[in-house]
């Protein structure tokens, strides 16, 4: 999903979980807790998106009834309908395009640079293994964290599957390159 699109509904969702309204600081904390596991949150962007949601009438800023006269964010009926439509609409995530930087390198490297290309593949494999390691570290932290990591675990599962596929592809590419251009050690 496009980042802007996703963050918009993610924030709308967080606001909707506070039917009585939520003030800015609590909203920031909740965003970190709920989304921070899989989203690099830039709070400048968060507040810009909140402003936009308010302009479109999907959330409203009202004065808190009690204690202070702090402003709180609350979802509107229009916002709730928009969120419901989003939740049930088919995801817009597109399958990965048939495009890889490595493929471009392969097209123009030529057999003379096979050894270097194989080295690049090793380099890429190393990066993916590190990514898997970090995902594992993340999963482990989640296992010991006092929050429900159900959705984050699903995301980690998905990320692991795609890294696994990339690694299998790299193995395949290096095997086929060796077969085609037989390298002498």
């Amino acid at each position, binding site marked *: *999903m*496009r*980042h802007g699109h*996703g*963050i918009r509904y993610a924030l709308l969702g967080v606001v909707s979980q506070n039917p009585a309204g939520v003030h800015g600081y609590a909203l920031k904390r909740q965003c970190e807790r709920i989304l*921070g*596991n*899989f*989203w*690099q949150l830039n709070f400048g962007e968060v507040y810009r998106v909140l402003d936009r949601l308010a302009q479109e009438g999907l959330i409203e800023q009202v004065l808190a009834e009690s204690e202070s006269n702090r402003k709180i964010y609350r979802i509107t009926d229009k916002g709730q309908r928009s969120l419901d439509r989003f939740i049930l609409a088919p995801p817009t995530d597109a399958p990965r395009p048939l495009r890889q930087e490595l493929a471009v390198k392969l097209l123009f490297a030529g057999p003379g640079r096979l050894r270097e290309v194989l080295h690049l593949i*090793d380099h890429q*494999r*190393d990066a*993916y*293994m*590190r990514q*898997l*390691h*970090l*995902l*594992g*570290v*993340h999963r*482990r*932290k*989640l*296992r010991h964290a006092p929050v429900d990591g159900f959705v*984050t675990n699903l*995301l*980690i599962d*998905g*990320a*692991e599957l795609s*890294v*696994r596929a990339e*690694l299998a592809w790299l*193995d395949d590419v290096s095997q086929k390159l060796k077969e085609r251009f037989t390298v002498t050690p």
Partner: protein
Amino acid sequence: MIEFRNVTKIFGASETTVRAVNDLSFACPRGAFWAIMGPSGSGKSTVLHLIAGLTPPTAGSVLVDGANVAKMTSAEAAALRRRRVGYVLQTFNLLPFLTTEENVGMPLVLDGVKQSEVDARVKEALAMVSMSHRAAHYPTHLSGGEQQRAAIARALVIRPAIVLADEPTGNLDRAGGRAIMDLIQDINEQTRVTVLLVTHDPVFAAYSQRVLRLVDGGLQQDMALPEEPGQPADGDLDLVG
């Protein structure tokens, strides 16, 4: 410390030889958790066999805590396996006519340890793998994951310096495999036992601190997997978008 110095292992004779390990050198420090990956037939399991003294190298030396395994008599190699090296396999190899605790205690019984000591060590090992409640059950009444836990307890009961795990998740589903890997990781951290894991699964290899990738018996790639400073500390992996 496990050290390979220019180790080559050739199986067979004359025209039908297979070079399973080819001039392999590495030094795995005590307490480390390393993984060995590579395609089938790349020599992964042979590396473990060489460490356990199950087969001698054709050339080079295999050192376990400074002792050259290649120069050991078969009795010395057997003692190494009985007292210092725990082995965990894809097939759990539990004896079906013995209970879990009897299976776990078997290496100590074979080594002539007295029964009261066996009982205490079995209890300790079963607790480490969270299998105390299954002590009196027979292997056929255990799930695959529980059988592997029992097999890991059997490897740990000797209080080994090294655990060699050859595709320990191979017969388990994803969740079961993950649980076994979590356990192996915890054991490595808690007991500082050196772990060498052979696996073809990159997700499980990534549990380790270093991955050796073998191709045709040689070291193709050596990948260190440190936690990058400041990386996922409080979780800011960008998994979407």
